[in-house]
């Protein structure tokens, strides 16, 4: 009777071969079972990266002392997606995604499809509005992300001499949505000002643009602002004045002329003249070169950033370029400012949708690297069948013995 009881128990609850419980496909039932009675080794065979709930459940089983291992019936695509607020005033959400598996990736939010990458790869999207979370889905994964913070953007301060460059720089930023404060010199003791003017610090300005030498008297204040975390853009030969040379990414080279007619072409900035960034420092990063000559470079300065832009007549691009040049000029200036701006993040309120930005990496983080598939998958159904057969054999034998005794009148 004891043997029958054991066989019946094993038939009802098959332990698998050598204590290994292997589950394929839907894990829900197995997870519930393992939670009640964990197997010595729990092994899952996946055909896609599990959702965060399933992954966390498996992780919990592993942390509870069980041995959880995983493998996949096909290669799982490694993908990542992240959505974050762009440091620009137009409220854009910047979505960056990458997939290395080569499988098609579709990008969508709760409102519908946004884009498709037929063969994966990397893509950066700027989305004006995002409904819910952004999802990047392939055959073997679904990565989701949502912008969790919003940025605080303070005004940009523009300092320079009244002229087309100052006018069009201010206009470009304003038309892009930036709040601009400016102080442009018209005569030795006369400045034309606009916007909130005051001490130059990070509580007041997101960035300071120095267009020429008129801000030399404020160079120490501006350098201190940069060290405190502010963003500074030095244009043209401005680094030659005041103490700007000490914070600039490089020295100011000899002026170069633009290529005639290029401002209307596909590389319009080659048509602009300017002062190249000469001898960039070791900490400088060259962001744009022209014919081997650096035209834009940037560096970190303590908590802040300083950018040196050689072009000092970008207004020609705005005015004399192609029909798209005005918009391109605005976007370009806005991106320069965004690259250096002091923009503190403020967490958004709770209630954000759950995210899973790196499904495969998170799975490896939770359960470790995949375990190779066993050469011969365990066949729990065979064991169960044998157990049942033994159980039935013993039961039939006992019944036969009992029947024989009854027929023979024996007790």
């Amino acid at each position, binding site marked *: 009777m004891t043997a029958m009881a054991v066989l019946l128990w094993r038939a009802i609850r098959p332990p698998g071969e050598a204590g290994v419980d292997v589950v394929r496909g839907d894990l829900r039932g197995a997870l519930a079972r393992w939670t009640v009675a964990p197997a010595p080794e729990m092994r899952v065979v996946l055909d896609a990266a599990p959702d965060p709930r399933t992954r966390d459940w498996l992780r919990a089983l592993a942390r509870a002392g069980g041995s959880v291992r995983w493998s996949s019936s096909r290669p799982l695509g490694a993908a990542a997606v992240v959505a974050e607020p762009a440091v620009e005033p137009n409220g854009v959400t910047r979505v960056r995604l990458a997939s290395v598996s080569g499988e098609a990736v579709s990008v969508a939010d709760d409102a519908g499809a946004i884009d498709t990458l037929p063969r994966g790869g990397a893509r950066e999207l700027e989305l004006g509005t995002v409904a819910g979370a952004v999802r990047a889905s392939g055959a073997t994964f679904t990565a989701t992300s949502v912008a969790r913070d919003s940025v605080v953007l303070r005004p940009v301060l523009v300092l320079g*001499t*009244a*002229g*087309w*460059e*100052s*006018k*069009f720089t201010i*206009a470009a930023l304003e*038309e892009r949505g930036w709040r601009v404060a400016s102080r*442009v*010199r*018209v*005569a*030795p003791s*006369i400045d*034309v000002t606009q916007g909130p003017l005051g001490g130059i610090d990070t509580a007041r300005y997101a960035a300071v643009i120095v267009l*020429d030498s008129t801000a030399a008297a404020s160079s120490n204040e501006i350098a201190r602002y940069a060290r405190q975390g502010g963003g500074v853009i030095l244009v043209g030969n401005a680094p030659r004045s005041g103490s700007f040379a000490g914070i600039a990414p490089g020295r100011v080279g000899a*002026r170069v002329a633009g290529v005639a007619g290029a401002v209307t072409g596909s590389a319009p900035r080659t048509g602009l*003249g300017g002062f190249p960034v000469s001898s960039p420092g070791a900490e400088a990063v060259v962001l744009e070169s022209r014919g081997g000559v650096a035209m834009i470079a940037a560096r970190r300065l303590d908590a802040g950033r300083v950018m040196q832009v050689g072009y*000092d*007549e970008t*207004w*020609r691009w*705005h*005015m*004399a370029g192609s*029909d798209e*040049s*005005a918009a391109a000029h605005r976007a370009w200036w806005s991106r320069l400012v965004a690259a250096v701006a002091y923009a503190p993040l403020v967490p958004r309120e709770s209630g954000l949708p759950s995210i899973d930005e790196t499904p495969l990496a998170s799975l490896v983080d939770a359960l470790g690297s995949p375990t190779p598939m066993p050469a011969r998958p365990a066949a729990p159904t065979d064991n169960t069948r044998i157990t049942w057969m033994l159980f039935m054999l013993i039961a039939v034998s006992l019944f036969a013995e009992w029947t024989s005794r009854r027929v023979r009148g024996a007790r």
Partner: protein
Amino acid sequence: MGLCVGPDAWARGAECGEVNVPPTRFPILDSRFPTSGEFVFATAQYESGDWDSAPLVPSNLIDSLARYTSLPVAPTGAIVALASEDLFRFPLVFLTGHLPVRFTDAERTNVRRFADRGGMLFVDDHNHDIDGAFHKTAVEELTRAVGTLSQLPNTHPIYSAFFKFPDGPPNTSHELNGWGDNLVHSHLLAAMRGNRIAVLYSNKDYSSEWGYHPDNKRFLAIDNTKFGVNIIVYALTR
């Protein structure tokens, strides 16, 4: 037709629209491109009418700009064809005349693009006559090109961009003498792009008021070109 610049511009009279004033009175920019950072006063040349009716205004305003401000300014002005791509090298362009104005399609398109891209066209009615041919045709053409011209409030920043004009546009001697339409125009007209003036239109005949040799400013009790400085400073800063 392109930009009428260079020392040979006067010799190329026909090509440059039969420029018939001597260089000493109407200087021409001598460069293929304005020097970086310098303000260049540009006068629009258009196919119809007499675009060159106020040849002394540029040098007079250049003189005033150099006199009152520290802005880098080219010592000579430029003439730019309204239909030319060169128009976009000069974000402030002065246009005047007495005769009917009929823009060609290319001129109209260029004026529209110019205004949309951030340029400012300053148009002055040299007739000082709202019943005159220039006013009627110029307003019609400008309306077709850039939209309706409406009265500019006398509190607009252009009246305080450098000098203060609390009463709006300064009156000209031609208005006060009763010439032309015998009216004192209390407002200028403007077509806007956002909060920026794209076309500034005047019936006050500043072309006559400012049309004298700069040296003769010394005979004036009050320099009457100060509002011209405001227009330029406004264009350079707003």
